[in-house]
């Protein structure tokens, strides 16, 4: 059989066989497979997209969380600082007030003591005057015999008394 002249019988069978194979495979074979594969690759692409989205939203959430945490930390620091200041100022004010009060009390006490002292001094002085007068009377009564001397003494007493009176 010649190699380069196509044989009719074989051509005939080939067309029939290839036609049948093509019909069977194009109807029941390849579309099923390619459709399934396409479905799967779409599914994979979809899943990858979803995973990417999930990753992005997770990233966003993490960032958000970090931000909130950071803000909370700042808030906390601020609050602690404020409270400390408040406390310090309260303590300072309280101690100021207390010292002012103490000073007032001291002042008052001092004034009272001074008044008491004055009173006591006055009483003592009147007592001393009375005593002096009594002593003087006694001395005078005894010493009045000597006139010259008495006179000098009297002067001296009077001077002293005047002097002490002036003080």
């Amino acid at each position: 059989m010649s190699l380069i002249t196509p044989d009719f019988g074989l051509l005939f069978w080939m067309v029939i066989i290839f036609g049948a194979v093509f019909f069977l495979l194009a109807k029941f074979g390849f579309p099923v497979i390619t459709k399934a594969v396409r479905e799967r690759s779409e599914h994979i692409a979809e899943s990858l997209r979803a995973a990417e989205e999930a990753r992005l939203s997770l990233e966003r959430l993490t960032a958000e969380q970090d931000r909130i945490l950071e803000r909370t930390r700042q808030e906390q620091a601020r609050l602690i600082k404020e409270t400390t200041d408040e406390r310090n100022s309260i303590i300072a004010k309280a101690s100021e007030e207390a010292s002012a009060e103490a000073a007032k009390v001291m002042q008052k006490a001092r004034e009272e003591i001074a008044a008491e002292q004055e009173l006591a001094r006055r009483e003592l002085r009147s007592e001393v005057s009375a005593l002096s007068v009594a002593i003087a009377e006694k001395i005078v009564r005894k010493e009045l015999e000597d006139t010259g001397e008495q006179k000098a003494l009297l002067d001296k007493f009077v001077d002293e008394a005047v002097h002490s009176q002036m003080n």
Partner: protein
Amino acid sequence: MRASRFIILGLLFLLLPVRSFAAAQDDGKESPSIDMQEYLFGHVADSYEWHITNINGKEIAISLPCILIDDGLKVFSFHDHEANGYTLNEEGKLINSQTGKRPLDISVTKNVCGLFIDSILLVLLILLCARWYRKHDVLKEAPTGLAALLEPVIVTIENDVIKDAVGPEYQKFSPYLLTAFFFILINNLMGILPCFPGGANITGNIAVTMAMALFTFLAVNLFGTRHYWKEILWPDVPIFLKAVPIMPVIEIVGMFTKPFSLMIRLFANMLAGHIMLLSTIAVIFLTVKLGPALNGTLSVISVLFGIFLDVLELLVAFIQAYVFTMLSSVFIGLAHPNPETH
């Protein structure tokens, strides 16, 4: 399990109408030489029987049915062709013994038989693969078995060849192109097998490649767009090239040269592969005359080179199927021009 399969296969083999013929050649003991032309052409050409081997000078061959339309339909086994009044002419084709005329011959020859076997195998493979996809949820399971074997090939051909070459409408053509690819591939691969179910030089036969090219021609031209026909019949060239229809004639010739090149390429490549392999093996028989030392050495070389060629043919089997599919895709893509780019 595996052994039982072999036994069943062997029994099936025995059921085939194997006929043994006494060798008609006279026993040339001192110079056993072979007729190279007969040897080569006997292996690569089509025939009415499927020759398997010679055992002790006895020819083991499967006699195939002859179907002739010669004054009515006549069906007989090739073994009985002489009894039915037909002889072989010098081309090896059946002719009527009385009139000497060749009847309309649609016999199931070796290649037709091979086509049937390979096609059944291919349909089974692809449909079993498709069945896996019907029965399983692809979104939940990875392909196993046959599906795992075929899916990468199908996906590669569809995505890398068909989609790129055909363009946006590729889904309409991909069943045809995939069928063509696998059809050529399985016939190429079966052609490399040296024994019965394979070994027929199917894709190295011009009638087969002609039919394949014809289908591509139809796929290109039946679905060509208006734009495609305009480019053939009234292309964008200066008017004097169209008034005397030089360009349209060239374009119309081009319509036919494209599938013609497909036909010749596949045919020539596969035929050449078969002939190279057969010639390499023939070295063993041709050098018998030269004495045992030279014959032995050359046999070793011949076997080694034969192994190399066999492996090369495996590659060629794939490449030719790939090239046919790719060029068909390109031709189909050219018949769907994108109006914006033209």
